[in-house]
C-alpha cells in the first residue's frame, strides 16, 4: 500500500498553517487517489543562509527525500520559511521533476508579506494551488502555457491568484497517466 505523505516542518505552528496543511492534504488525496499521511520533518535551520536571510531549497529538498518513508508514493513538504535558489531572489517551492519529493513555502503566500491585511481564504487558495503545482512537477509535468492551469508558471502572487486549483485538460490527462503508474 502506497501513501501520499505530507511532510510538516517544525516551524509550522499557527492555526492558518495547520489549516493550509489540511486543505493541501485533502486536494492531494483527491488528485492522487491515495490515502494521505502526515510526517514531522523537524526544523530546517541547516538550510538557513544568514547572508540572504532565507532558506536554501535544495538542501531542504534533499533532507525531505532522506526522511521519505518507504511506503511513500510522493512526499510534499510544507514550510513557512522563505525559500530560495542561488540564482533567484526566491522560489515559491521546488520539486524533483518526475521524482518523489517536493517542497512548498507558505511564506510569500500570505497577504501580510505584502503589507496587506490577512486573508485566510486567499492564503489557503494560494497554498493549495502552489502545492498542486509542485506535486505536478513530481509527476513529470512542466510549466503549462494555459494561464488558468495550476501548472502555469507563477513568479508572483498575482499569477497564482489568476490560475485555478486544478490542472487543464492536457495536464490532467498527463497527471492521470503518471498517477496510474505509481
Amino acid at each position, binding site marked *: 500500500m502506497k501513501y501520499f505523505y505530507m511532510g510538516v516542518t517544525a516551524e509550522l505552528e499557527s492555526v492558518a498553517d495547520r489549516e493550509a496543511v489540511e486543505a493541501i492534504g485533502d486536494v492531494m488525496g483527491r488528485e492522487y487517489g491515495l490515502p494521505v499521511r502526515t510526517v514531522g520533518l523537524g526544523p530546517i535551520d541547516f538550510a538557513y543562509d544568514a547572508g540572504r536571510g532565507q532558506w536554501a531549497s*535544495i538542501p531542504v529538498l534533499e533532507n525531505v527525500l532522506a526522511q521519505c518513508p518507504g511506503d511513500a508514493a510522493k512526499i510534499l513538504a510544507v514550510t513557512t520559511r522563505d525559500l530560495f*535558489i542561488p*540564482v*533567484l*531572489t526566491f522560489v515559491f517551492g521546488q520539486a524533483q521533476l518526475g521524482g518523489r519529493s517536493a517542497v512548498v513555502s507558505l511564506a510569500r503566500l500570505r497577504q501580510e508579506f505584502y503589507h496587506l491585511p490577512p486573508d485566510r481564504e486567499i492564503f489557503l487558495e494560494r497554498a493549495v494551488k502552489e502545492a498542486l503545482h509542485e506535486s505536478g512537477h513530481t509527476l513529470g509535468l512542466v510549466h503549462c502555457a494555459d494561464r488558468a492551469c495550476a501548472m502555469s*508558471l507563477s513568479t508572483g502572487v498575482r499569477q497564482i491568484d489568476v490560475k485555478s486549483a486544478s490542472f487543464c485538460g492536457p495536464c490532467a490527462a498527463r497527471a492521470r497517466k503518471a498517477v496510474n503508474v505509481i
Partner: protein
Amino acid sequence: MKTHWQILVVDDEEVMCESLAAWLREDGYQVDTAMSGRDAVEKARQRDYAIYFIDLKMPGGMDGIETMMQVRTLHPEASIIIITAYATVDTAITAMKEGAQEYIVKPCNPEEISLLVSRIIKVKNLQRENTILRKKLARQYNFHDVISKNPRMQEVMALAHEISSLRSTVLIQGESGTGKEMVARAIHCAGDRASKPFVAVSCAALAETLLESELFGHEKGAFTGAAAQKRGKFELADSGTIFLDEIGDISSKLQCDLLRVLQERCFYRVGGNEEVHVDARVIAATHVNLQQAVADGKFRDDLYYRLNVIEIRIPPLRERREDVPLLARHFMERLGHELGKDVADFSEGALKVLMDYNWPGNVRELENAVERAMVTCRGRLLTEDDFAFLAHNGAKKPWSVPAGMSLQEMEKHLITATLQQTEGNIKEAAQILGIDRSTLYEKLKKYEIPR
C-alpha cells in the same frame, strides 16, 4: 515548442548550476550543465545550444567572457546571457561589447529570468520559421524542380539560368497557366538578388490610376484618400526583382511612365516632386502577342524593345504533351500530402484522357484537374472516370459571334441549327426561337431551308 531548444548553464559552483538547470527544466527546456569554461566549449562543440547562461567569474584561466567568445566562434547565432554576482559597469559593457545578449545580476527576480528566456525563445522560433520558409520557397522555385523533358522547355530553363545574375530586363511570353511567374521567381532565386525582395504585380488586376499608385507609390494628399505617403512596388523591389504580369494590358500613359523607369531607373511618386531612384530588375510577362500589339499600335514599340532585351517563350502544354504524365504524377505526389489522400497512380485510361485533352488552361488547369480527381476519387488509382469532367469541359466550347455575317445569314444559321436540335420538329423549334409557327414557316420558305 520549448523542448526543441536546449540550454547550457555554465557555472563553477555546482549548486548554482544545478538549481538554475532544475528551474529551467521545470519550464520544459532541455538543460545541460558545465562546471567550467573549457567544459562548456567542449559541450558547445558537440551540441548546438540555443541559450547559454554563463557565469562571469570562473577559475581555471577561462572566465565567462573568454568562454562566451569561444562559444560565439562555434555558434555565432547562440544567445548568451552573462550572470554575475559582482556587477560593475565595466564588466557589463565588456560583456555586451563581446556579444552577450543580456547581462543579469544574481540573485535575480524569477519573473525577470522567465521573461528573458521566453523572449529569446520567441525570437528563435521566428528565426527558425523564417529559415524553414526561405528554404521551402527556394525549393519551390528551384530550376531543378521544373518538371519537363521537352527540349524547348529545357532550352527555356537553361536560358533562364544563364541570365539569372544579369540586370537585363526579361520578357516572358506564354499562354495563361504556363508558369510565367514560376519562371520569373526561379530566375530571381538563382541570381545574386535572391536574398532581396521579389515583388509581383498583376497589371491587369487594377484600374489605371490605382496601378500607377501601386507601382510608383504616392505622396500624402496626392488624391482623395491618400492619407499618408505610400511606397510603391518599384521602391519595395529595390535591389531585388519586380515582376510585372500581364504587361500587355497597361494603358498608354503607364507605358510611358514605365519606359522612363526602364531608361532612367527613377520615377516620381504620384503627386510628388522628388525623384526616386531604384535598382530593381524588371521581369515582365504577358499572354498576348506583344509584337502584334505593337503592329496594331496598342503597345509602344520603344517600351517593347526595352522590355524585350531577353525574351523567354514558354510553350503551351499541348505542344509538350510528353510532360503531361510527369507533371500529373508530380501533382499527385504533392497533393497527396496536402490532401492527406493515399493515391498511388493513374490508370492507363486516365493517362490517355490527360494526353488527349487540349489543356487550354495549361499546367494550372492540369494541376486543378488532378486535385479535383483526387478529391472525388475513392480508390488508390485515378481512372478515366475520375477525369470525366474534362470531356464535359471540352464539349462546352465558349460561343463567339462569327463576325462578317449579315443579320439574315445569322438568322438562317440559327434556324437551321435549332431545327437540327429539335430533329425537324417545327412546333418545338418555334418555341425555342420565340416566334409563331407560321412565322417560322415563312422564314423556312424565305431562306430555302429544307425541313
